[in-house]
């Protein structure tokens, strides 16, 4: 139990500082560690937790609370949450301090780093989608739902919740036959 808690703390503290451009970028690494390295759950179970984390309020990175709960109960959930949010928050605090002290004069530096990190963040977001497809037994119906959701949500302003409900309905209907 203590071992699992330490593993959770170590894993998510590392992912916390590697989460370039937001929490989504670390999903592939998280999936690998949770499913392939520590065997806390299967690939489809990981996708199920991902789906739950996207349908609840708050930052999607709270998926770590569900992972922690699955691996080590309530204590696991809390340890995972603190490990995921504390290190990056301390960094954010230090940057905010530095920024206010400099009176915003670091703007040139900031714009350059922003330009360089933006494409990495875009790539990591796409990588998360790709890794999640690879990590699950994606059948034809699931591929159809993913493709439809990608196109619709890229081209229209449809509420993602509607698409999520539709996805569940399609897979239940496909299995009923």
């Amino acid at each position, binding site marked *: 139990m203590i071992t699992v808690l330490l593993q959770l703390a170590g894993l998510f503290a590392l992912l916390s500082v590697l989460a370039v451009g937001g929490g989504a970028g670390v999903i592939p690494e998280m999936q690998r560690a949770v499913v392939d390295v520590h065997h806390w759950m299967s690939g489809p179970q990981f996708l199920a937790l991902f789906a*739950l984390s996207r349908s*609840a309020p708050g930052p999607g990175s709270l998926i770590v609370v569900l992972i922690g709960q699955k691996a080590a109960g309530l204590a696991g959930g809390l340890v995972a949450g603190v490990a995921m949010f504390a290190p990056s*928050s301390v960094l954010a605090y230090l940057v905010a301090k530095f920024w206010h002290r400099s009176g915003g004069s670091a703007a040139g530096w900031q714009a350059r780093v922003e330009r*360089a*990190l933006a494409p990495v963040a875009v*790539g990591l977001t796409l990588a998360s*989608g790709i890794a*999640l497809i690879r990590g699950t037994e994606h059948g034809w119906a699931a591929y159809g739902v993913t493709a439809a959701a990608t196109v619709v949500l890229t081209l229209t302003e449809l509420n993602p919740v509607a698409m999520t409900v539709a996805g569940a309905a399609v897979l239940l209907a496909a299995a009923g036959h």
Partner: protein
Amino acid sequence: MRGGRPAPPDGAVTPSRPGLLALYLGFLTVGACSVGGGLAAWIRRESVTKRRWIDDTQFLTGYALSQLVPGATNVNLAVFIGTQLRGGAGAVAAPAGLMTVPLGVFLGIGSVYFALSRGAAGPWIALALAGMGASAIGLMLSIGLRLGRRNLRSAASVGVAVVTALVVGLLRVKLLVALLVLIPASLALHWRTPAQRPDAAGE
């Protein structure tokens, strides 16, 4: 480049400086309301439009910096705004407020899901979640595509994004290793490109 944006004179522009409890409760509201994403828009509504704690320039600066710092962007944004308004104590109060309701909801959802998935309805719940997951993957891909459309303005940027997606998503190279190569490469490629501000707070 330096004169590009008005420097926020600390404190002077801030129309009202909330107490710690008000700060906590403001972000508590944001956290409770944010079902279905769009957290940044909610934070802007609460801190700029409704309560006038900060102005729009300060918000956009905070949002841009929050993306530079690793970790969940909106939590970083809460830390940033909290620090600006109330220093170190604010840096704890704001994200704590933001996370209170979602954390409770997640722990609740987790308990219910883990209990139910062991029961008779387990296979059906798994199927429904697989469908929701398939949609959520599409949402993730669409966010990537939308971000790309807005922020990638040169062949070098598109190249870095595509290589990142393939190396991390398809080849599954370890993230730490990938970032240690990709970030310096991207910095080198973008250091000299002419100034262009990507849209902040678009999401």
